């Protein structure tokens, strides 16, 4: 197990290093001079020189990368080309909103997927299974920003039950925060729910076909008992993995939902940075999200290995 943990952590660090190279390269792939492009019509030689020096763009590439990485490790991701604010400050301000939305969406997804997936597997081939499959197919095919618009149209504009947009911190006003979170969390959560439903279903089906489960049935144990003690106990292990992966995906994938609901999260910050050609902010946002994504994957993998010892033993044996 210790060897597996060390190897998996090593892989994650290597991937993070690769991510940092890609993120660093972003600013250098911009055709022309990124600072000049960012300043546009507001060009001022003094500001230009200061920004170039601050971003270290007058140094050789390798020196720039090493410097940038060393500063990034210490939490210094440079300053915004537009506002002059440190990028890390902007990220810290925006992260809670994204985290709240991602967790809210995951909760909605789980509330849908766990019962629907389990019932669908237990009643395989029955009408309820087809209904669940139809929902899953619907969820993965429907553009979230489309039904998000429809939800706003119905629940905010027509019925006036919920506010159409904006983020409020749960620490400031929990009730208002929940009201504002509902529509965006449902919008992002239905897609997650659809993906998770498929996994829960196939995971439960697989566990139901395991030999020890068939033996338990053959012994005449009650259906519910077998389901709870033999099937779900094994089925939830792969489900934990996919839940973790979904959280990572949600963190990076809710840009669209953040924009739709004017939600001041990291995704919206990244998109604004794109529009304003504020490359340090874009770099910081992408690095943070990709780093979190890697971290979540690592935790999920280690958790998986802990829950199912065959993983670490198996990989150790094959390498």
């Amino acid at each position, binding site marked *: 197990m210790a060897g597996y943990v060390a190897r998996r952590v090593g892989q994650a660090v290597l*991937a993070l290093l*690769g*991510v940092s190279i890609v993120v660093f390269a*972003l600013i250098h792939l911009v055709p022309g001079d990124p600072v000049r492009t960012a300043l546009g019509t507001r060009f001022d030689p003094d500001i230009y020189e200061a920004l170039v020096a601050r971003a270290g763009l007058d140094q050789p590439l390798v020196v720039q990368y090493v410097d940038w990485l060393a500063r990034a490790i210490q939490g210094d991701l440079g300053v915004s080309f537009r506002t002059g604010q440190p990028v890390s400050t902007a990220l810290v301000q925006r992260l809670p909103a994204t985290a709240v939305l991602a967790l809210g969406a995951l909760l909605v997804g789980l509330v849908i997927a766990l019962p629907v997936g389990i019932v669908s597997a237990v009643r395989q081939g029955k009408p309820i299974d087809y209904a669940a499959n139809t929902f899953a197919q619907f969820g993965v095919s429907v553009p979230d920003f*489309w039904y998000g618009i429809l939800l706003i149209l119905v629940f905010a*504009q027509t019925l006036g039950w919920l506010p159409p947009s904006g983020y409020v911190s749960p620490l400031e006003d929990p009730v208002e925060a929940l009201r504002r979170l509902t529509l965006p969390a449902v919008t992002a959560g239905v897609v997650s729910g659809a993906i998770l439903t498929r996994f829960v279903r196939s995971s439960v089906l697989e566990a139901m076909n395991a030999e020890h489960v068939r033996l338990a049935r053959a012994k005449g144990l009650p259906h519910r008992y077998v389901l709870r003690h033999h099937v779900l106990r094994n089925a939830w292990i792969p489900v934990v993995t996919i839940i973790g992966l979904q959280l990572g995906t949600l963190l990076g994938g809710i840009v*669209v939902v953040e924009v739709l609901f004017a939600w001041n999260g990291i995704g919206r910050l990244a998109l604004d*940075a794109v529009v304003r050609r504020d490359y340090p902010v874009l770099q910081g946002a992408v690095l943070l999200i990709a780093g979190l*994504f890697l971290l979540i994957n690592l935790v999920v993998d280690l958790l998986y290995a802990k829950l199912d010892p065959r993983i670490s033993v198996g990989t150790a044996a094959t390498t």
Partner: protein
Amino acid sequence: MSEPLERPDTAHRPRWRETLSVLLKNRLAAVGLLALLGLVVVALLAGVLTRYGINEQDVANRFAAPSADHWFGTDELGRDIYSRVLMGSRVSLQVGAIAVGISLIAGTLLGLVSGYRGGWLDAILMRTMDVLFAFPVVLLAIALVAVFGPSLRNTMIAIGVVFTPIFARVVRGSVLSVRENLYIRAVRSLGASDLRIVLRHVLPNVAAPVIVQTSLSLAFAILLEAALSYLGVGVQPPEPAWGLMLSDAQRYMEQGWWLSVFPGLAIFVTVMAFNLVGDGLRDALDPQQRSIIESRGVGGDA
């Protein structure tokens, strides 16, 4: 050697006629295939099926509700939404086909080389793919478009790059499983070159998972293009991209439901069709699933 050399070579290859017949027996997949055919016909004949130009403005008729004149109503500039949705199918299918084409070719090449060669080249290529995998898809696509500038062409390239690791992994996995087969070793011992082995004996055997992945990726590519266009970093106006139309619709939401309903429905139907066909293909090309479907004689992705 008592084992025939030619039989296993074709054992995992998709048998086209059989695959199609299984696919058509799967009701949902058949519906998806029919919808796709319909979409292609609509995209090809869009010019004939529409009565108005996509940028033809009728300012006196802004935000007109659906009627006999304008089946899907008109938008904020009095443009006919029906015409724009129909012409939008060309944009979506084009982006889907070219973007997935890029990732299919690049990913298959990388996967073949990586899986067949193994060793340090495999390690480097796969670690590179891991790095690309570490980026959330939407964010990576946005970052790439941000660097190269938003346009139809760059959207296709960005989506192509983002999807490449998926194909590379799928192909590499399949190559690894066929590489050590007896017949491959036999062909090699007969003196066949690596290129010949890869093209004649390995590639056909990895076709099945690649085909399934292609169909599912087409669905996702169309969804991603719509999202990028909606965000303003994909296809640019005045192109009639469905995502762009939804972005406009959101701004004029209170003016009428038809602004958002029809372009969204178009994306949904297209993506659903590709997903249904993809699921159907997976069932048809996977013998275990195939027996389940055949024994039931019904569709569904069960």
